[in-house]
């Protein structure tokens, strides 16, 4: 039976990732060009995400944030340049090998059949089947569900949840995967205020535990408050990259977003607050 099993499970022969020391490069993107439908969506990206940090990708619609994330996730092939995860080009890893090295939260969570929420979260453990880490399955699932506050939905079918609840279940699945690199595409888009903060706090916790977290955000305030570094994308290039306090300048953001903004330090914490300049509403 065991020979039979090893024939059909991909888990046995895989090398499992060794934990990266804090500050080591988990993702290295160099000279990345991606062309989609004849349009150059990414035009020369150089970026490094390090273990133990939260890197925010920000920028206007169509700047290439999701495309960059998809290229890092190995969903899209690079037209030019390389993407390395754990020191090796993503194209050279097999799908099972990549699955224990990075987890991906897609922008929208879909499900063809009405699986119960707990089963959906448990799907995140699939990459570890047949490895010693399989023993952590129940702990990882329960932990991820508690962290995202979806434990109460456990037995309910995924299709019966609201948009925001689905988004949190999808995040729980990604957390349960316990990969050292997290790629999150707009994890806060469908969430209310409380859960937006919750998700970003989870990102910080994972970074503190030594993971590399790359997160696409639209809310610059969230990025400023929670990210170690922010990369501002504009027209397929990185317009600026660094700590949010240095990168979020009025001139740069106004130009990139084509919307005049003010950047003020928070009166208590000093983190930058980005506010669009609005003409005062006049009542007639």
């Amino acid at each position, binding site marked *: 039976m065991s020979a*039979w*099993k090893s024939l*059909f*499970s*991909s888990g046995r022969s895989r090398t499992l990732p060794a934990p990266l020391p804090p500050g080591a490069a988990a993702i290295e993107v160099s000279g990345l060009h991606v062309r989609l439908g004849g349009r150059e969506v990414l035009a020369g990206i150089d970026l490094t995400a390090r273990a133990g940090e939260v890197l925010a990708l920000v920028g206007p619609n169509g700047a290439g944030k999701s495309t960059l994330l998809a290229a890092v*996730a*190995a*969903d899209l092939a690079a037209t030019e340049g390389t993407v390395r995860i754990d020191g090796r080009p993503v194209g050279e890893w*097999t*799908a*099972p*090998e*990549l*699955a*224990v090295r*990075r*987890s*991906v939260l*897609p922008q929208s*969570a*879909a*499900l*063809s*059949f*009405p*699986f*119960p929420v*707990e*089963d*959906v979260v*448990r*799907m*995140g453990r*699939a*990459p570890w*089947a047949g490895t010693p880490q399989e023993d952590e*399955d*129940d702990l990882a699932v329960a932990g991820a569900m508690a962290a995202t506050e979806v434990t109460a939905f*456990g*037995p309910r079918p995924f299709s019966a949840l609201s948009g925001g609840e689905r988004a949190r279940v999808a995040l729980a699945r990604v957390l349960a*995967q316990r990969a050292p690199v997290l790629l999150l595409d707009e994890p806060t888009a469908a969430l209310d205020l409380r859960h937006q903060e919750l998700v970003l706090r989870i990102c910080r916790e994972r970074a503190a535990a030594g993971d590399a977290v790359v997160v696409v955000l639209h809310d610059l305030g969230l990025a400023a408050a929670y990210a170690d570094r922010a990369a501002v994308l504009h027209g397929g290039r990185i317009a600026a990259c660094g700590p949010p306090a240095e990168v979020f300048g009025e001139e740069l953001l106004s130009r990139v977003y084509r919307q005049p903004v003010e950047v003020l330090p928070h009166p208590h914490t000093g983190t930058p607050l980005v506010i669009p300049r609005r003409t005062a509403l006049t009542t007639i």
Partner: protein
Amino acid sequence: MTATTTSGTERADTTAPAAGPPAKGRRGTTFTLTTGLAVALFVLALVSAGLGTYHISPGDVLASVQHRIGLGGAPLDRVGESVLWNIRLPRVVLALLVGGSLGCAGALMQGVFGNPLAEPGVIGISAGAAVGAVASIALGLSFFGNWTVTFCAFVAGLGTVLLVYVLSRSGGKTEVVTLILTGIAVNAFAGALIGLAIFFADNAQITQITFWQLGSLAQATWPKVLAVLPCALLGLLVAPFYARKLDLLALGERPARHLGVDVEKMRMALVLVVALLTAAAVAVAGIITFVGLLVPHLLRMANGPGHRFLVPGSALGGAIVLLAGDLAARTVANPAELPLGVLTALFGSPFFFWLLRRTRRKQGGWA
């Protein structure tokens, strides 16, 4: 990742030990359902082997089977033994194989397409396989002896699955409307090809084709069982190994890949398996529709969409439905025999209609 239904439930037991009361309840249901289906199948097979113009009691059937496999028991009289072993049992075994293949193929296709309306009959795979089978009869091919019809059905079926798959997918998913419309087109084209084959066939071949086309197990013999056994068995044995991956595929192609599923490889393997199973069913029994649609749906309603139960469970359920259908087909209008394909379509079509309505309501129209 298990070969049989029983070890499938064991597996479910070991992977989720501390999952709490709801999951525990579901595991209980899985076990009850699997046992229930297996027992029902066994009893039905026993009854079906005994019922007919020449009646044999279930006890005598068991005794005769025991005798033949050398576990005691006693043989029947000469006529009884001949009826049981040359007419009834091949037919029962064939019904099991065909039904199991159809049920399993339906569950697999719905998983691969991520679409609950996918089924070999509805989207034209059976018709495609039928073209191969009819062509081999009409042209009088015999290059593989006993296996020629099955082989031709397999090749044509494989081509059709690939064609439907390519035509009905865009942007990594299959929309219901596209799938059904593709099915209509493929069914029409296959119907035309079958018509052409009949046009060129001689009278004896036409009779053979017509009988076969109605979907009947009346001509069951051991050589026929042997003709489809390799196809059906291979398909049924390989299918459960993809159950876990099919669960992941429900998240979508990219998320499945993120979780370590080699989606391309899996898709090719499953397309092959579906073609094998459909060919096995079509080669001997003609086009039997809706079994692959009805059975997985009922099981999903009873025990959730997890494929580790659904794939082997649908094989069991399909075998039961076909065995019961065949029993009804040959006893209801005794001594005449109803065509089995007609019977399943009679019950299956309203169900399909209901399913369409429900899917449409859920999506808020076809847009």
